[in-house]
């Protein structure tokens, strides 16, 4: 794991959080879109919050794909679940929402889960194409990778 790879993981977390909150803000501004009238969704793109939100979610998808190309799914998913914590923190600071003790417990459990995978190896699976043999992933050969 290089510094650049940690940056990609951080990108997944930040882009998905910001993208979702901008989309939510834009859609609230537009009011409810009827499930029977999808044309409303087409015009939603014209809303600046929605369009910036979509660009951020595209950035999220690009960094997610990049991470999956060099790390396990069971590493990437927990490692990027900090976005749930980030949403709560943004809600607390930006919107002054109260965070209940149960939510604090949830935040603590997610953080603990992230800690569990973060200290382990990022990749354990044998890549499917032979151009990238396991030798390219020295972490995978460490004893940590054994179940």
């Amino acid at each position: 794991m290089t510094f650049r790879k940690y940056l990609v993981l951080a990108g997944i977390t930040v882009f998905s959080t910001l993208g979702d909150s901008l989309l939510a803000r834009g859609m609230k501004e537009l009011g409810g879109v009827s499930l029977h009238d999808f044309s409303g969704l087409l015009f939603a793109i014209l809303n600046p919050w929605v369009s910036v939100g979509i660009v951020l979610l595209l950035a999220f998808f690009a960094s997610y794909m990049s991470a999956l190309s060099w790390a396990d799914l069971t590493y990437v998913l927990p490692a990027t679940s900090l976005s749930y914590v980030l949403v709560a923190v943004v809600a607390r600071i930006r919107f002054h929402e109260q965070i209940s003790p149960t939510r604090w417990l949830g935040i603590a459990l997610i953080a603990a889960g992230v800690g569990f995978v973060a200290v382990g190896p990022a990749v354990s699976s044998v890549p499917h194409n032979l151009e990238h043999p396991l030798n390219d992933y020295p972490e995978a050969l460490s004893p940590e990778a054994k179940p």
Partner: protein
Amino acid sequence: MNDLYAWAAIALITFAATTGDVLLAYSMKRVGDVGEIWKTNGLFAVVSRILTTPTFFLGVLAMAVAFYSLLFGLSWGNLSLVVPASASLTFVANAIAARIFLHERVGRRRWMAALLVATGVALMAV
């Protein structure tokens, strides 16, 4: 009755999202380390390798199914039930599917992480 529909939607979202994640992870492992390919062959090589991987589009399709099931699930059930229940079940389902289909070594550490995050996500909604 609405509860039954909501849980049916949750099951569908979990199934489609897990299928999508597994297919996308499989495709990207086939493509290879995107950073390395970019460095040696340029961005165009990265994009064309991804776009010539058929399972990538199946993954995107499964993600679209998950997204639309979420929309329909939200029209039947509460936001505070559908979103955390499906997100939290997807973490556990992904750990099982990654072990079976992607041959990832899901050791005790990874299991603990999946279960802790799944429980944490569920608690965030309470």
